[in-house]
């Protein structure tokens, strides 16, 4: 299987471990990734200039179209943005004609033939749970994990149609396969607070703090997530809040690709276990 990876713009500086762990797992699972030509999905522009946000996504969609591959994202915001633009352009002929007029300069054309896959969907729907289970060589024991869904993987419901908590929860199933114990917590589908970081840091910090405390009160040792914005928030920003004394105890956060990678027996160095700001290395003791 071949996919175009929409690398999120936050990863090169802040989250190299998300890239290396994703690359390592997908290589093991036989998925080929291409990414060089893709640009920002347009997410940060949505409130400022909607059309600019559309053309950013449209360009990526048309490049994938030209190469006849689907796009995979490992960030909820990229996922939601690409999906929304794809839906909008499929429905709105006037807008897609206008955007195509501009993409023509690069000999690109949006035709609506590409699907957007969240990395969770690639694991669960495209590769299938069997394939993942076959590749798991080590299991976690006594590890309590709170699965953090976040926003754009679940909402707006009509658009994303992702199997979220309460129904056949894809993310929960995948985490359970690694042997980790799932901890139910009621704020798992709320915003991580990242959207306000840099705009109103107090609001952002408060949203993050509430989630961390809820997860801890529910008995979790780790948060597990699959979104670059959420991870930057729960790792880097949490570190800042700890340093400032706004949170007293750390809640370590592991990327799903790191968690799965460990249970697939991939070298923790490649998974960037020591690259997280809040130490997650004790997790290595919980593995068989």
């Amino acid at each position, binding site marked *: 299987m071949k996919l175009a990876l929409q690398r999120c*713009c*936050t990863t*090169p*500086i*802040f989250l190299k471990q998300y890239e290396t762990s994703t690359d390592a797992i997908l290589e093991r699972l036989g998925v080929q990734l291409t990414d060089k030509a893709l*640009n*920002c999905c*347009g*997410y*940060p*522009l*949505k*409130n*400022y*200039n*909607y*059309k*600019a946000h*559309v*053309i*950013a996504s449209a*360009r990526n969609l048309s490049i994938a179209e030209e190469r006849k591959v689907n796009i995979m994202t490992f960030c909820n*915001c990229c996922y939601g943005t690409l999906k929304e633009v794809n839906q909008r352009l499929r429905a*709105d002929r006037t807008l897609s004609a206008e955007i195509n007029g*501009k993409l023509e*300069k*690069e000999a690109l054309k949006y035709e609506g033939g590409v699907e957007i896959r969240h990395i969770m969907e690639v694991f669960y729907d495209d590769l299938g749970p069997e394939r993942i289970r076959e590749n798991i060589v080590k299991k976690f024991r006594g590890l309590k994990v709170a699965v953090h869904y976040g*926003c*754009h993987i679940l*909402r*707006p*419901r009509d658009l994303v149609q992702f199997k979220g908590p309460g129904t056949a929860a894809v993310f929960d199933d995948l985490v359970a396969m690694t042997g980790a114990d799932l901890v139910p917590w009621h704020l798992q589908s*709320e*915003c991580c*607070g*990242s*959207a*306000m*970081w*840099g*705009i*109103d*840091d107090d*609001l*952002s910090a*408060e*949203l993050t703090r509430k989630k961390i405390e809820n997860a801890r009160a529910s008995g979790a040792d780790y948060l597990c997530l699959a979104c670059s*914005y959420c991870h*930057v928030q729960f790792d*880097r*920003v949490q570190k*800042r809040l700890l340093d400032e004394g706004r949170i007293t105890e750390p809640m370590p956060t592991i990327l799903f690709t790191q968690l799965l990678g460990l249970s697939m027996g991939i070298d923790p160095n490649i998974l960037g276990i020591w690259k997280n700001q809040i130490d997650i290395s004790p997790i290595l003791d919980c593995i068989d």
Partner: protein
Amino acid sequence: MIFNISLYLSLIIFSLGLIFKISTWFRYNFELTTQPFTARERFFAAMGGIVATLFSGKVLILLKSLLLDVFCQRRIMRESRLRWVMHMCMFWGFSLLLLMHALEGMLTSNLFRDYAATLNPFLFLRNFFALLVFVGVGIAFYRRFVQKAPRFSTNVMDRYALILLAVIMISGLFLEAAKIVSFERYSRMVTDYADFDEEQDLKALEALWVKDFGVVSPNLTPPFDKELLTRGHELHEMNCAACHSRPQWAFISYGAATILRPAALPLDRSGLVTLLWTIHFLTCFVGLAYLPFSRLFHILATPLNLLINSVMEKGKSHPANIITLQMMALDACTHCGSCTSRCSLAVVFEEIPNPNILPSEKITSLKALASGKPLNEHQITVIQEGLYLCTNCYRCTTVCPAGINLQELWFDVREAVLKRGYPELLVLTPFSMYRGLLSPTVAKADYHQAQKQPMVGIEAVCSALSDPDDPINPAQMDRDFKKQMLSSAKGSTFSYCFTCITCTSACPVVRNYENPREALGMTPHQIIRTIALGVPDLAFRSRMLWYCLGCYQCQDACPQGVLVTDVLTELKNLAVARIKSQNRRTGERS
């Protein structure tokens, strides 16, 4: 005479220009109001840094960088093979021509005792180096004018540089060709160097030079008989061979000479050689004098920047040197466009035609800012917008062949420009996440000031109604606004609202405050109501609108199918468009 005068004149201009340009590295600054270091302090910090580096182990890093970055240009290689070939050809071709040919009096003739410009290997090498330059310039022309990637711009400076190079190269090539066919040159050499004067001998030598050396003679035309040529050859060996290899070795010029041949005699008599020589040296001198002020200055600034970058690091090096390096980096930019071709947001330029979005064009504005050029409010806010429209993905910095730390440059200049106090609406978007993560490196007051400015700016423009508790005068209702929202597929869903407050109850931002009205101005369901009432200013002014996380809880919870989050997004877009156009009008006047 003209040669000497123009040489010294150009050398003087070049030296003064060089001193001026280098002085700007120490004088210029992005923060015009608060200069942390004086030019003097920066100069001495730089000298100190250079001495400390040269007497440390870092010399090895410098040498490695010289070899790989400067001589082998590995950064260009990583970016594109075609461009690497182009640049290696120009760099090496031009440098070697400069050393071997232009500086022959100083270098080559001292290194090689029997040097003559018309002798091999020099004769051949000159043409070979020229070939390299021609290949390089050819690829450059192709890239800029034929291939033309989208958003790849060619400015006046790029054109001047290419034209100047082309004139120098072509005049030199035809100068050599004109000398090959010139009978006047041939006669002068015979007068100066021949140690015989019998008419038959003179004829013999001339015949040989017409036949083998491409001279076009008014007296003789081939074919010549064998004996005459044999005698000519003997004379050539005795008198000429020490300084002359066969001109065919000058393979490019010899080809050009073939083109000149039919008209060689009249051209020669009218002084073509002198004319071409004058053009050749004058353009070289113009190039030399213009170099510090042109794009070609990168010949000096870029290698220097690559070398210095290899041994400097923010946080470890003297902060004064970081500023100096950034000023130098502006001169090291070659406007090659690599950054723009890989920029994560470049495509957005198609919708927001602000050239400052494109990294390669930002540099031009940065130069204006650094030099303290007076700019009006509108010009500054345009630059500010371009600087903020950056996802901080680091790609520009990774690909820059000149090794400029563009990422760091954008961040520092962005902060310096924000200090001027013009509201930046983009601060209210997720582009601010990066700024938030780097906030410990920014002065606290400056950081919060830039966060507060946009709301102040919005309140200044959207002032038709300011207090939600004030009675609404029907004259204040904007019916067009309501119609505009009704015409949009998603926006029109506001009309389904029956004010059940589910959206407000679902909102995590509202839940965060004890007194949401006070903290946020309005709550989501009230914002939806402002549309039906036609009072957008109330919505635009409310913090709730801009603090919306876009998490879609309200939208998924709405029992009426109002696309609450999407409606809020549309409102924000309308507000931005209105405020931007209003600010543009006032900004241009200032």
